[in-house]
């Protein structure tokens, strides 16, 4: 009898210690970061990926859109794009026509007769990999994030498909993958850039209208591009700190 009691007491003590310990740990866990402050890496030795887009060079062939779909197994139907190309045509009467049939995948075709055109240009679009990303801010579970090297990624094993990030993205860069049933977006071809390759869209661009590189590397092609040109980001008033920089961006572009 005595032994049973003793055993029981021991069992209770252990349980209480275990449960109490876990609770205590859970309580202090959110404050872990404060204690660790000094050890957090500043990531200075890591690259900070970004992209330059030269509108003056883009010819709207749509090779980037096609290559992206092949490389990243994006469904072939015209509703899902990690990158696409828009053609802007400013007419003589001042109106602006924007087109991107099937994301421009078969090459953009001018639909406005030459005599009505004031000017026309192509604008490749993709995820802007914002440092201050509204989608990351909005995700309720932490399934999308800015990686230490500056790429906005999706954790597809953790996304619950609430689509709040799609609503929060000002650039329309996100969609629900109809097969995986989670959100999907441009990753700068994260699997490629970590092997030293270029993103697929950059690799295939025939006119070098896309420049990919490390914003921290002063000798990179991207930094040279930013130094040489007057670049602009999309929707700067939203303060998203975009890392996709456009050269020759016209005010008609939205």
């Amino acid at each position, binding site marked *: 009898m005595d032994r049973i009691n003793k055993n029981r007491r021991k069992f209770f003590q252990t349980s209480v210690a275990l449960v109490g310990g876990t609770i205590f740990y859970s309580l202090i866990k959110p404050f872990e970061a404060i204690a660790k402050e000094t050890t957090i890496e500043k990531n200075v030795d890591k690259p900070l990926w970004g992209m330059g887009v030269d509108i003056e060079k883009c010819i709207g062939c749509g090779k980037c859109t096609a290559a992206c779909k092949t490389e990243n197994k994006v469904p072939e*139907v*015209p*509703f*899902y*794009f990690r990158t*696409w190309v*828009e053609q802007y045509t400013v007419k003589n009467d001042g109106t*602006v*026509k*924007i*087109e*991107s049939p*099937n*994301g421009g995948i078969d090459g953009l075709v001018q639909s406005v007769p030459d005599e009505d055109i004031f000017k026309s240009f192509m604008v490749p*679009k993709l995820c802007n990999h914002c440092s201050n990303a*509204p989608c*990351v*801010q*909005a*995700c*309720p*579970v*932490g*399934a999308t994030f800015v990686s230490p090297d500056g790429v906005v990624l999706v954790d597809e094993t*953790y*996304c*619950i*498909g*609430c*689509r*709040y990030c*799609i*609503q*929060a*993205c*000002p*650039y*329309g*860069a*996100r*969609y*629900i993958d*109809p*097969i995986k*049933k*989670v959100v999907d977006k441009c990753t700068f071809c994260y699997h490629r850039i970590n092997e030293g390759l270029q993103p697929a869209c950059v690799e295939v661009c025939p006119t070098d209208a896309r420049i990919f590189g490390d914003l921290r590397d002063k000798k990179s092609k991207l930094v040279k591009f930013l130094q040489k040109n007057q670049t602009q980001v999309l929707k700067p008033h*939203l303060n998203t700190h975009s890392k996709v920089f456009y050269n020759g961006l016209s005010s008609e572009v*939205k």
Partner: protein
Amino acid sequence: MEEHYQHLYELLSQVDGYIYPNEIEMNWGLMIVLYPYITGLVAGAFILASLERVFNVKVLKPTYELALLTALSFLFVATLPLVSHLTQPLSAYRILITPNPTSAMAIFGFVYLWYLMVVLLLEIWFDYRRDFVIWSKSSIGFKKFFYKIITLGINDTDEKSAKRDDKLGYFITLIGIPSAFLLHGYVGFIFGSIKANPWWSTVLMPVIFLFSAMVSGIALVMVIYMIVSWVRKVKIDMPCLDTIAKYLFYILIVDFALESLDQIHRFYEAEESFDIIKVLVNGKLNITLLVFQVVIGTIIPLSVLGLFQVYKPSEIIRKISYFMTGLMVLFGIFFMRWNVVLGGQLFSKSFSGFTNYKINIFGMEGTLMAAIWMILPCLILAFLLWLMPPWKKTPFPS
């Protein structure tokens, strides 16, 4: 899958102007319309109940418990449309496990639990505890079993314990009012904080949601009170009904003023997005906004209720008018949610074109599912009224 693509091809053919290619599929449908609607009914019904309790509007006594039980029934269902619209509904628990502190949506689970567990259940429990003890002695079967369990072993029925329940219930209601404000103001913030969408992104959004919630909740309790009275074949307490209508009138004025202010501000400032919003309001939202929400949901109820403040026709006319205006307000607020949620997605974030929304009958986002989510709380309410009828409560001797 093929069917889904077929649906999207059809939408693609209806695109007007230029939209980003990923925007053809509308991501938030009918379920997300229901979510703020149902949550709003909860908050509104609760606030009506607290009018009696905290602000001491004794004439509302006949609807006090009814309002609480209505709030509870709808609160049980509030998260279901939200969960059913997820593409990974079984992973919904992650919102509670790793809530992102910067996400407006992540905190909903906690606000909801706080409101359900701490505010509503406790308030109802304090209100009914004494009756549970009394009823547990006089009933049999399931009811007896339920009453026994729910008293949690506290069996005092004397006056002292009744006073204590009353005091604690009052305290909970005091916590409850800011909680109800939080619950629904917060739902407004989910939309109001999306800077990418100019139709949603307004600082007034939480306040507008809050007042429209009160309007819809009060209208709902008014309608339910009348239905319950007819079913029970008892006389409707006219002073009570008149008072509810009076509050409905006042809050409807505030709600209408706020919404007008928001739109006037938007139109007057005429920012970058104004051109597309103008087309949206005059085009795709024409009927749901101007006719359903403004005329049927606001102007007509306002005129009827306003008229009754100065001129009181016979009881029977008032009853019918209250019933009709209640339904119209509920209809109008539903379309207010509709216009916010769907309206905000109809135009492209490129501000250069529109997509279309086609409502389905079947499927997770269909009207049938929506009807289920609206009928379910009514069934829960009927069950609760059977289980704990407010009219069988032993009056507190004081």
